[in-house]
């Protein structure tokens, strides 16, 4: 018997996950809306002055992007686990690395990418200086990819546990520190007129490393979760 084609399997998974995302399109808007709401709460809780907000904007937008990603991570493998699809995926003969990568990619496509696309609007709302807009977009584009990838490890580790949401935050947050620091400082450097190529390169390097390593760790974690 021919062994089943891997590319076909990956395409089937990609199609299914995109279809699911489309069916749940109401929920796709949620990270965005969450993002927007927190951004509107901040002036309420802190100060509505444009000078204050403008100086906080880079860090604030990044912290909130991080939270929004975190919130959506829990469901990355959860529904597959709950209905038994994950068992089926694990005993399929295809390398788990690529399967995780596909799932993370879809996750980024429906959370990280829209966040990045939405960032100019938020910049306007928080009085971000003009020089910061493109760097904000670029840093979010790459940074959210890293967030999704690292987050997948946490999601895989906690998928078998009920109420994993907050445990997931605890596990993942410390690992997000470098992304946050570099992401926010790209924007701040740009505003202050410094060159940002170096910092963007660091983000790129983080992305490259996590594309290689994170799905591997997540794959191992998935096997353990389902085994237990």
């Amino acid at each position: 018997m021919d062994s089943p084609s891997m590319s076909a399997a990956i395409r089937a998974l990609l199609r299914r996950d995109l279809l699911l995302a489309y069916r749940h399109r109401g929920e796709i808007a949620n990270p965005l809306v969450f993002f927007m709401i927190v951004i509107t709460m901040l002036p309420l809780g802190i100060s509505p002055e444009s000078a204050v907000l403008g100086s906080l904007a880079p860090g604030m937008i990044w912290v909130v992007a991080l939270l929004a990603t975190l919130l959506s991570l829990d469901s990355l493998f959860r529904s597959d686990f709950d209905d038994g699809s994950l068992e089926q995926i694990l005993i399929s003969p295809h390398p788990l690395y690529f399967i995780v990568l596909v799932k993370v990619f879809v996750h980024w496509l429906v959370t990280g990418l829209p966040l990045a696309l939405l960032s100019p609007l938020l910049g306007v709302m928080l009085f971000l200086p003009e020089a910061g807009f493109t760097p904000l977009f670029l840093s979010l584009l790459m940074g959210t990819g890293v967030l999704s990838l690292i987050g997948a490890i946490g999601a895989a580790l906690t998928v078998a546990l009920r109420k994993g949401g907050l445990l997931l935050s605890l596990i993942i947050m410390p690992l997000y520190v470098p992304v946050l620091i570099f992401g926010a400082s790209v924007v701040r450097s740009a505003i202050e007129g410094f060159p940002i190529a170096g910092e963007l390169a660091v983000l790129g390097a983080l992305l490259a490393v996590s594309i290689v390593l994170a799905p591997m760790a997540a794959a191992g974690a998935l096997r353990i979760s389902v085994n237990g």
Partner: protein
Amino acid sequence: MAWQWFYRLGSPRWFYEKTNRWIPWLATVTALLLITGAVWALGFAPADAKQGNSYRIIYIHVPASFLALAGYYVMAIAGAIGLIWKMKLADMVMKSAAPIGAALTFMALVTGAVWGKPTWGAWWVWDARITSMLVLFFLYLGVIALQGAYQHQATADKASAILALVGTVNIPIIYKSVDWWYTLHQPATLKLTSASSIHPSMLYPLLLMIVGFYCFYALALMFYTRAEIVQRERRTAWVNELVGAAK
């Protein structure tokens, strides 16, 4: 044959019986080191020119800080051994290392804060080293929480080992980035001065304390691991004999 010792090391029973004999010695050495160090540090080392006596807290703060970091690597390496060679004992060591490391990290944070109050006039500052210590503390908490969350012990061990390993990859990155972040901000007003400038009369008791803390760490790890062994192997014949003998 060459792997014999490694195999035996993998046996909790062997470990339990060996440590039975090590512990009295190690405990004596630890007590000697810590008592000598403490008496020397508190009683005989000279007061600092600028900080007076408050600096003496470094004799706890600095060793605790060292071991907090070293403890993470102990935990991660034990986790890796448990994952790769499926050694039960390594899993137990990893599980035991987490709370000890977290406690030491916590101790470093608290003693640092207590020291900060007279030195900087604030309990807390967002200094690079301090911040990364805090992040390390969270990494520990994550491992502990994950251990506790799984009900099945073998799964808990493997899952937290993966997390510990991912953490090891990240720790250098975190430290580098926090450091870089701090220099970017340059608050410049406050800095932890480097340890090398310390006067020898202050340094020797510090060295004693550091070695003492290492011994103490080993001792604590043994105790924790032994408790873990008894707990996990409670259904085996040899533990039952042990408990029976104790009764």
